[in-house]
């Protein structure tokens, strides 16, 4: 990342907050909704100060009624507001999938464009904090599979802000997925954000293309630094739209593709990228496309077992090296 003097340094969580503040400031129809996002400032303090600054009419505390308030946010999006609605943990999709999957994702299509649903579903994922099996799931594959939803996953500080602002400006429902383990990460804000839907080459390299997103971007960048292989790290930034062009360009150069995510590997989003990569680069790949994700096991509580299951940068480096050794 550049270190030009004018770049602001901040933390991932503050960048999210700044993104919301930006949106609330510039769009009078924008509202923020969720459990304790208002006066309380959010259980992870991500929305801190917004209610004070923009009023509790626009930064709205809701009861513990996800199906109701997420559905209401969708209805509000149909009628002139631009809600950024928080689903506190991505696991809570279990209690509010319908308004996202069956309403927001489909209403534009079913009405042949007569209804527009500009809404951001803000949520966060992340294992590695002993949050237990019901508070540790990365479920991006679920929403990416539903036509009509965009899915973005900031893995850097600037994307935490940029993707949120872009998602809020988008006329479509966007699922915006934070990673809780990144909240305190420091980084700079870019002056010239990449557009939503474009991947970013985080590290240049020649031997292996590693495609990832969210928290694993950091892990993979560290792996690239530590590895004896020359790793090119692509931060996908969004699953829908999926910027396969950047992935294919890179992997056709390196001849090796490794897809890495924190989510469970089986039937995970990485399978789509791996399947496409293997298909499109059939003649160019030197070794099979590899994937690294969590095994098909609920996330345990105790830190040692969590560490056993969680994908780690070290495994990325080791796998990349093995791929180079292989061919």
């Amino acid at each position, binding site marked *: 990342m550049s270190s030009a003097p004018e770049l602001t340094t901040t933390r991932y969580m503050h960048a999210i907050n700044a993104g919301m503040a930006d949106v609330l400031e510039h769009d009078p129809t924008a*509202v923020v909704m969720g459990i304790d996002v208002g006066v309380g400032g959010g259980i992870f303090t991500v929305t801190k100060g917004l209610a004070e600054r923009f009023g509790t009419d626009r930064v709205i505390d809701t009861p513990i009624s996800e199906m109701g308030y997420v559905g209401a946010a*969708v*209805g509000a999006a149909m*009628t002139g507001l631009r809600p950024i609605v928080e689903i506190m943990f991505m696991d809570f999709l279990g209690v509010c999938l*319908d308004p996202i999957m069956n309403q927001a994702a489909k209403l534009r299509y*079913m009405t042949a464009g007569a209804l527009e649903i500009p809404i951001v579903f803000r949520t966060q994922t992340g294992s590695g904090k002993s949050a237990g099996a019901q508070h540790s799931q990365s479920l991006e594959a679920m929403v990416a599979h539903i036509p009509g939803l965009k899915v973005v996953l900031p893995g850097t500080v600037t994307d935490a802000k940029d993707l949120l602002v872009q998602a809020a400006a988008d006329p479509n429902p966007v699922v915006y997925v934070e990673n809780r383990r990144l909240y305190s990460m420091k980084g700079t804000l870019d002056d010239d954000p990449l557009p939503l839907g474009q991947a970013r080459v985080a590290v240049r390299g020649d031997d292996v293309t590693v495609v990832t997103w969210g928290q694993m971007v950091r892990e993979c960048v560290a792996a690239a630094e530590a590895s004896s292989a020359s790793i090119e790290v692509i931060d996908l930034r969004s699953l829908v739209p999926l910027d396969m062009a950047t992935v294919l360009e890179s992997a056709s150069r390196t001849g090796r593709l490794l897809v890495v995510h924190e989510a469970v590997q089986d039937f995970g989003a990485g399978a789509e990228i791996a399947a496409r990569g293997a298909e499109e680069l059939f003649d160019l790949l030197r070794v099979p496309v590899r994937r690294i994700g969590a095994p098909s096991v609920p996330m345990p509580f105790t830190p040692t077992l969590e560490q056993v299951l969680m994908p780690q940068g070290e495994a990325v480096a080791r796998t990349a090296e093995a791929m180079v050794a292989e061919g």
Partner: protein
Amino acid sequence: MTHTTTTDPSEAAAAPAAAPLLDLHGTVALIRAFETAVSALYRDGEIPGFVHTSLGQEGVAAGVAAALRPDDYLATTHRGHGHVLAKGADVDAMMAELFGKVTGLGRGKGGSMHVADPRIGILGANAIVGAGIPLIVGAALSSKLLKQDRVAVAFFGEGAVNQGSFHEAVNLAAIWDLPAIFLCENNLYAEFTDSSTMTRVGSVAERTIGGYGVHAVTVDGNDAAAVHAATTEAVDRCRRGEGPVLIEAMTYRWHGHYEGDGQPYKTEEEATRWRDRDPLVVLGARIVAEGLATREELDAVERAADERIEQAVAAARAADLPAGEEAYEHVFGA
């Protein structure tokens, strides 16, 4: 703060002086003609998918819609043709949508369970029981925050009251004092089930008052004028900023849950009793009794409705199916 008014369906409610009885009659006749035609068309295989008609329940649609402004919001259910028509949706575009034609409200992409026309506040029918209720709470939230003075009405059946979304949505509207009207068409059955077996508290109005402290009334749904009066009062409360209202309209569906359902779960006696309280007949009798029109004039209106629907059917039949490439359009907006 709240109270319930139970109207015995066997006695017609006293209507307010201003009840637009002739308009109501026209709307009921139109929906009757539409649903009758749709039922036959579905039987004959001209309409695909699932179809749920509102025959017998037209008085609710007419009464509610007549109390609304064009810019008020409405969302409904799988049984929503009448509501959408009453709110002013174009009859040809409605019929064409059921046929899956490109001239349909959703260019054939939505179908019977997803008719919508946001230009006149119709946010759509919905095939997920209870899902429209939170959407309408959101529309009411928009109206309030954007200071628009619009009222938002969610139609749903008494079966939907056992869905969590009802509970969460009504509570939200209550705590935020939203201009939302929860319009429960209690037609006694949810699919094949006698709904009284699925709750201990049969009155949806009572459940709403007790559970949420929301003003709720029960009204004879087969008396369009009574529905109109109750809705007018509810709309007034909403526009005055007094928060949500629930209206439970007692009614009865004549046909099966979906077209084709033979209704073995209903007694002949019950069905007859309700057929005898046909909302079209109730309204007609009242109009004639009050001297607002003659029986012959009403017959002419009903014939005109039939003809209007015949035209719509002819137009729908003649219309094109959407071109294949339309399948890929309208997923995302730019």
